[in-house]
């Protein structure tokens, strides 16, 4: 019983996956470089978050083979997960506000 994923993977060497692995490793290294830069915490967070998203995307798409699954499944997983994750972000304004009172007290 062969899935669509297998059909595509067969014949291809390990080279592609080694490249993915090296990419992820390089991006992980990049995180450490960013950590030693002299920038504000929010700038640092933004850069690190973007890099982490790319890393995670590579891992999900290639190591977890989501890219070679049916498009319907890829959409189901991504749309479902990301929409719920986005809805989780409502609370942030409250976290900032507690520190600087929204700029009303200093």
């Amino acid at each position, binding site marked *: *019983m062969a899935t669509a994923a297998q059909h595509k993977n067969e014949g291809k060497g390990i080279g592609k996956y080694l490249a993915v692995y090296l990419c992820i490793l390089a991006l992980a290294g990049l995180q450490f470089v960013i950590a030693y830069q002299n920038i504000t915490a929010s700038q640092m967070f933004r850069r690190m978050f973007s890099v982490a998203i790319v890393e995670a995307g590579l891992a999900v798409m290639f190591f977890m083979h989501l890219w070679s699954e049916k498009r319907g499944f890829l959409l189901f997983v991504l749309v479902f997960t990301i929409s*719920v994750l986005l*809805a989780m972000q*409502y*609370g942030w*304004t*409250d976290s900032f506000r507690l520190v600087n009172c*929204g700029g009303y007290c200093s």
Partner: protein
Amino acid sequence: MHDMSAHAVSHHAPPQGFIRKHIFSLDHKVIGKQYYGLALVAVFVGMVLSWIMRLHLGWTNLAIPGLHLLSKNGAPGNLMTPEYYLQLMTMHGTIMVFFVLTTAPFAAFGNFFLPIQVGAEDMPFPRFNMMSFWVTFLAFVVLISSFFVGDGPTLGGWTQYAPLSAVGAVSGPGQGLGVILWATSIALFCVGQLLGALNFITTTLDLRVKGMSLMRLPLTAWAWFITSCMGLTAFAVLMPACILLILDQVAGTSFFVPSNLVINDQLQPHSGGSTLLWQHLFWFFGHPEVYIAIVPGMGIVSHVLITNMRRPLLSHRVMIGCMGAIAVLSYMVYGHHMFVSGMNPFSSLAFSFPTLVITIPATIIVLMWIGSLYGSKLRINAASLFALGFVSMFVSGGVSGFFLAQPSIDIMLHATYFVVGHFHMVMAVAAIFGIFAGTYFWFPKMTGRMMNETLGKVHFWLSFVGTYCIFMPFHYLGIAANVRRYQAFVDDYLQPLIPVHRFITVAAIITGVAQFIFLYNLIHSRFLGKLAPDNPWEATSLEWSTPTPPPFDNFGGKHPVVYHDPYQYGVTSSTGDYVMQASPEQVVSEHDEK
């Protein structure tokens, strides 16, 4: 193609012996009945708690005989202390929301009928299914056990707002061990429901028989599928929140406790947490949860109404789309529970808008029921009456939602009985009516015997009128500024409202007693009811193609083949005005939406 599908995992041999058959059973039907039994026990416990509260609210100085047996410290001389009132309120809310409104329409009916409606022999992971029930059962035992430890259960309300819930025994009786048991129970409950949701989604997607395309699934199956998608993500957020709460209680962390907090004249040793964080995490679960309670009811009510009015809904697809839209929006509106929490006022705006938007699919659903009912010859029986009752409750309670969705009005009404009336009608009683409709409708299939229709109708009218008598006055009380969560009304401006409270109390007791008619009907019919034919309601979906009650593998070692959309009523066929999904008979239908 097939050996990779769930065939391999779904097969298990029929069980031998009492324990395997009835207690640690892998059979989805037995597990469904176990869930139903758990919900039945829980609903009567919750109802008795509400009686005690109502009696206290109506006659504050009334000694309730035997109350000291429930709690020695909470009711000295059978007189309720204010703390004990709050403990009862917390337990009433927790038991009802988690162990009744989530387990009965979703876990109980879903377990029993989802696999049959898709034509499967069982769920793909029967062991997970069994674990799901027993973990939920354990959660219930842990919750109930808090009545019997130390100074009783927690008094923090079912929402368990921090910091009251996170600082320990200093904040009141039951706030130490009681909260720990509460949070443990809810974390366990989350695990149980996650296991259930995994099974429900995989059953719906992978175990459908030949011909059962997604659009041919009955609306109940769709409702359970959508609900389990919500449950999968919502419970996964509540579980870590409960664990962080337990850490705050036992490990000295202060996730949810701000610094320099003084409670009962004692400075708390905590530092730097955020009380709003708990509310954000809790309501991120909490709002999808109310739809987890109500969406299965929508499915059941549609299913029951369609069968009894002998015509499909105006549009099958729009109904499914609306339930899906409600599920998606449910994650974006959770902050409307927090308008008065001190949340950023700009977030209130951002939550208010989707809250008003979510009324659109809800309204479409209601209009679809009413539009389909218009001009139909509805068969009146206990099931269809309760389905109509659901529609009525949902509309009556939903209308007050328009008020509460707007922050400027909600600020006035939030801490009053208006909110209590609103959510009891739209979510609690409506979902309970959905459970009743499902019970009267499916009881013949579940047990092989018919329920008594006359008793069912009496039960309906008493419940229906009683519910309006209880919860409609709540709205008036709220507009008259009657604050909620108070154990007694001693302020001058509340004195004129006490007769209303007494009226509500009497109505609650009468309505509650009426539920024993249902209990009698349920037990009596289970053993002595008239034997049920295979398809007593002349319905079309697959559960009515099985023998009654369904054998261990549902279809007797065979797989049905599906030829039709789920609701082929009002056609001319050899069986009458309907054709079953698994019947190959070709009929001319006006309802095909292809």
